[in-house]
């Protein structure tokens, strides 16, 4: 949706001549570090990712093991000491699941669902988009009609349908998210590539008789990257939020292995009764994750966009 437009939005505005096609890595790092906010975002995200990766070793409880849960410990307030002897710093949910452990494990699921689906969708979408723009003709028509087909379907509804058909499950959610999101990448890449294709440097590359794959991946793709990265970061965040919404609507991941979204949806019922922690802390965790991803993404876009360079 948005991304598609960003790709397109770039079309009328594209007039400035491109400067460096390839940026040295060090230059990129120093430019990225110009924004302290972005650095902070990166640091926070690293912490979040670390907590998620290390969850099995550092979490006080394995919230997926029913043997470790006790409903008699259900809905305990933050700071209570439970039957198992350790303190529930963030309280427990209705099943006696330690919220801190639940959030760490939930992060694992949310992040892998978000990143996994965005990565696969990006790979599939970008390849197809590039192919469409470069090959043109029938191939282009076919791919773009496929994109139309996909975009003619609101993501949330398509995901709802796919999940209703596939059933719950983490893998199924990833499949559903890839199926609803690849088209955005394809459209973005194709849009940019179409314009870039007409540019002098590509024509120059053609004149030099460079092989097709080299033109595609060394020249065309890097110039399609900025919008792709913007779309990508937005889509990771969006995928996480979409998964939360799907869980809220009763599809999504299985209830015994809750993602952040499902934790929120679960606790949402307890909001009115004052047991805020069941929904509040996972909400904060989700917020921090998405905001840090977006902060990094924002700066990446500014750094990577050649048009913004003076």
């Amino acid at each position, binding site marked *: 949706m948005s991304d598609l437009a960003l790709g397109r939005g770039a079309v009328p505005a594209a007039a400035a001549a491109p400067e460096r096609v390839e940026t040295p890595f060090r230059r990129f790092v120093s430019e990225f570090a110009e924004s302290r906010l972005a650095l902070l975002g990166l640091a926070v995200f690293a912490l979040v990712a670390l907590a998620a990766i290390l969850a099995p070793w550092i979490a006080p409880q394995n919230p997926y093991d*029913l*043997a470790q849960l*006790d409903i008699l410990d259900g809905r305990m307030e933050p700071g209570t000491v439970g039957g198992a002897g350790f303190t529930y710093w963030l309280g427990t949910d*209705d099943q006696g699941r330690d919220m801190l452990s639940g959030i760490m494990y939930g992060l694992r699921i949310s992040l892998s669902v978000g990143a996994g689906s965005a990565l696969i969708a990006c790979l599939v979408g970008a390849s197809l988009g590039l192919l469409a723009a470069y090959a043109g003709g029938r191939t282009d028509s076919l791919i773009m009609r496929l994109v139309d087909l996909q975009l003619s379907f609101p993501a949330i509804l398509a995901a709802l349908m796919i999940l*209703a058909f596939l*059933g719950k499950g983490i893998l199924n959610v990833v499949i559903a998210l890839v199926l609803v999101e690849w088209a955005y990448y394809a459209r973005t890449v194709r849009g940019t590539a179409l314009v870039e294709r007409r540019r002098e440097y590509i024509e120059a590359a053609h004149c030099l008789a460079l092989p097709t794959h080299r033109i595609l991946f060394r020249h065309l793709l890097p110039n399609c990257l900025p919008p792709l990265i913007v779309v990508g970061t937005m889509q990771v965040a969006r995928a996480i939020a979409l998964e939360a919404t799907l869980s809220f609507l009763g599809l999504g991941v299985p*209830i*015994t292995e809750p993602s952040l979204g499902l934790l929120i949806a679960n606790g949402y*019922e307890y909001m009115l009764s004052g047991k805020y922690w069941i929904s509040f802390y996972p909400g904060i965790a989700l917020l921090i994750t998405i905001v840090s991803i977006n902060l990094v993404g924002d700066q990446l876009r500014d750094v990577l966009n050649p048009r913004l360079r003076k």
Partner: protein
Amino acid sequence: MSATLRRNASVAAGAAALALAVLGAAAPARAQTLTMAVGAPVTSLDPHYHQLSPNNAVADMIFDRLINTDNLSRMVPGLAVEWRAVEPTVWEFRLRPGVRFHNGNPFTAEDVAFTLQRVPNVPNSPSSFAAYVRPIRGVEIVDPLTIRLRTAAPAPLLPQDLTNVRILDRETHEGAATEDYNSGRAAVGTGPWRVVQHRSGDRIEFERNDGYWGEKPAFQRVTYRMITNDAARTAALLAGDVEFIDQVPTSDLAKLRADQRVTLSEITGLRLIFLGLDHLRAPNENSPFVTDHEGRPLGRNPLRDVRVRRALSMAIDRQAITQRVMEGAATPAGQFLPQGVFSHVPELTPPRFDPEGARRLLAEAGYPQGFRITLHSPNDRYINDARIAQAVGQMWTRIGVRTAVEAQTWTTFIARAGRQEFSAHLIGWGSNPEGSHPLRNIIATYNRERGFGASNRGRYSNPEVDALIEQALVEMDEEKRERILQEAQRKAFEDVAIIPLHIQTNIWAMRRHLAHTPRNDELTRAQDVRPANAAAR
């Protein structure tokens, strides 16, 4: 015998209704409008289109039945003042004189005959009321206020069946389609409320029927809204946008109990939450979701061993589930029906929580290490369904039966359960207040021709129980029938055909100025609500 019993009951109920009517009339200033919100959408105003509680509740506001039911689902006179079996295969109904439909047409036996003839013939009905009139072979109008129904075999349950059938006006409803009811044009009955406006899926506006034959409703107008989101419904009550809600989520109970502006009305319902087990696979076959601890098939179906079933039942701490998961909104159960309902079995108490004993039984049955099982459950059908399943999973895991819980939407769940794909599943059953209803549907051997065991998704089969059910269904003597039904239930539950968990409590919440008579059949009707001061008198 049964006839006298009924007549006495009807006279007593009639007197009570009269007394209430007097009290109602004595109430001083009558409130003008009642705004209520229900949690399940009403799909049609056609009373014979879809057998569905929300529809039935609204149908009860617009129409009457020959035999109405009181808040404990006991039969009370409706449009029939008296009914009795004149022969084992003939029921006679004496109709209430002087009743008029909303449009002024008088109510007569012709209308009853017309209704009975329409019920099985509603086009496109996804769940018709046909089964309730199926025993009827002939209809005989004796005089305008007497009608006789002839059945092929003795049909002791016919009056009970007819409590599901709302009576239409022949003149108004001849040729009327479901759409005409929905538009309000044909939503014309003898009931306490007339329909003013119907906005499908959103709200129905009612106005009091001043000519109603029974107790006059306390409100001039009623706005009946549908708010399906639980939290939004509670919020609407707290914000004062609606004065009355049903299906109060258990998670809000603590807060609402403490809130000075709100009062609750509760009653033990008729809906049992239970676990169904795989009885279909033979003792030497694999059950689809049972394995050993390494995930290998067992080569046998442990669920066919009554000791295993008993162990699984004993492992469950029902008190913990009703207190912690249900927040007190349920009663631990050892059978289908709650105390005080016809054919309840006094000695079938909830199985005792005994994890040690459960482990011993498992070892005795040859599973000292237990096994692995998946418990399937819906997550959007019953109150806290997936949460209950997880709690059961915790308890089973503690006795060595490592349990994975898989909660799905009802749409997926029920299709798979209907194909016997599960080893263990959590499901619920809302009973009629009569033991043959759950027995015939859930316990009886699956038999298409007899119409037995249609909801027997575990495919339990016990010829002794089947024989008792058959016997009960033609027994005209109430006491004898109750004894037979109790015997059948005793046999079934001793054999752990299913694992009963708890019976739900039905809860409504309202602003302080209102009072409500809670119903165990879960129906939410405006005539059960009145100003609180009137109740105090």
